[in-house]
């Protein structure tokens, strides 16, 4: 294993780690909306600086913060090319067959790529600084108003947290199964596509069986302990919101308002 899996929680004690998880999730939501609102050069510069500042505060190293986008470079390049060649036929440099490359298209593609990139990086910072269980608690907290219109938010959060809890176990089991089948002669590392396809069943069937078995055991255990799906799950630890939490939320809101203001000034520009 050379690099860490994307978005894995990295324990730490930075100001970002210490923030209340509900505030963090809300802040992430606002930040992503803000990223979509940005439509000026200055706006992007501010956004990049803002996210860089958060990354630095979180103590997450730059390569780790950026590894959310590691496997997406091809996706980015394709978006950029598609936009450059198809987006704006009106002011194309020239036209050849269906291709109408234009500067407008190129800049538009660039902004799309930049927005996706920034949203991924900031989400990655959230998941890297917040234990998965905290995230589900935060989610439960944030969607709890919907319970008044009959949506079982408690159960949704429970399902999510169970699913998240099982990821490490299943990952470990998958690894063991892969190794066991490999020593039996399965050819996962083969380059031939037929041999790759052949190696699918020996992996998939044991993984599914293991997952079903775990789910079955868990449901029996939950029932035996009296779980009846009633909402009102208690948190393991909860602390009251601190000045820092409100401060963080305020900063994010200010950045958002600033971007809205910039957008209003800049209405005529459309990228």
């Amino acid at each position, binding site marked *: *294993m*050379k*690099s*860490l899996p994307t978005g894995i929680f*990295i*324990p730490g004690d930075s100001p970002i780690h210490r923030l209340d998880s509900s505030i963090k999730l809300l802040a992430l939501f606002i930040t992503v909306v803000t990223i979509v609102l940005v439509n000026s050069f200055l706006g992007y510069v501010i956004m990049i600086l803002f996210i860089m500042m958060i990354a630095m505060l979180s103590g997450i190293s730059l390569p*780790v913060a950026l590894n959310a986008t590691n496997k997406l470079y091809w996706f980015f390049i394709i978006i950029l090319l598609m936009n450059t060649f198809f987006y704006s036929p009106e002011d194309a440099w020239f036209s050849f067959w269906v291709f109408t490359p234009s500067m407008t298209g190129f800049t538009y593609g660039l902004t799309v790529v930049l927005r996706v990139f920034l949203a991924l990086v900031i989400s990655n910072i959230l998941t890297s600084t917040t234990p998965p269980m905290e995230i589900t608690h935060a989610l439960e907290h944030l969607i709890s108003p919907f319970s008044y219109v009959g949506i079982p938010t408690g159960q949704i959060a429970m399902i999510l947290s169970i699913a998240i809890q099982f990821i490490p176990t299943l990952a470990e*089991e998958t690894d*063991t*199964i892969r*190794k*066991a*089948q*490999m*020593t*039996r*002669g*399965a*050819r996962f*590392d083969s380059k031939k596509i037929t041999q790759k396809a052949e190696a699918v*069943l*020996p992996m998939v*069937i*044991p993984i599914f*069986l*293991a997952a079903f078995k775990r789910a079955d055991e868990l449901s029996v255990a939950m029932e035996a302990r009296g779980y009846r799906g009633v909402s009102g799950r208690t948190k393991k630890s909860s602390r009251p919101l601190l000045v820092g939490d409100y401060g963080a939320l305020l900063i994010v809101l200010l950045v958002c308002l600033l971007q809205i203001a910039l957008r209003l000034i800049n209405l005529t520009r459309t990228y």
Partner: protein
Amino acid sequence: MSIELSRVSYTYSPGTVFETVALQEINLTIEDGEYLGLMGKTGCGKSTLLQLMVGLMQPSRGQIFVDGKDINGRDYVRAELRRKIGMVFQYPEIQLFETSVEKDVAFGLKHSGLSKAEAADNVRWAIEIVGLDYDKIRSVSPFSLSGGEKRRVAIAGILAAKPKILILDEPIAGLDPKGRDAFLDLTQKLNADGVTIIMVSHNADALSKYASRIIILDSGRLALDSPSKDAFKDLARLETLGVGVSQAREVAHLLSQCGFQTPADIIRYEELQPLLLSIARGGHL
């Protein structure tokens, strides 16, 4: 058929906050036909060592030679290693996936280059040697079997390739005493037929009885490597290494504390029994 490790180290997730040094500077030679017991506290690096030997992972530093060839060398053929070494993981029954016992056991022979008839012979041999009735069980779904039978089928699926080296990672955990003894007898039988056995276990009784050599790891380092009759002499040291001793060794130790003359290399019941008898008859002091 020897395995040689030369200054092997392994680190998980190097350069990250999750960096774990699992093995450090391991030097080890395992000869043909040995029955080797590998012991040590949980997390001392036993599983990592086994997985390096079967080429599932590559050492961070150092080299591993099987039959004199570097298994991580650029022109080494992995298929050769797979043919030579079989590995039984803890709870091997997790690897079952085929629709019938026969097919599952034959899975590992697909790329072995054996003819159909040879492969069928191997499958029958493997199913029978783990103590199952070939004709009765061959077309049964492996998922309809009991836990103990599933494990036997899974092990048959590894033996079918007739590996010359069998590596086992805590294979007897969770077996009942009868199943455990049957399984250990099987490893002994294979060993007598020339198969090298390398087995991780916390069961000192089992290893004292079957293994000819004991290796103990401590925090990723080789802490002890000796013939099994000498391995369990220093009880205080074994205590700090987190390794238990066999009941026979324990009784012999108690006897020596009570003033009876007992050799420190008694580790098996058969060796203890004459001594106990002579003490009981009052002839020994």
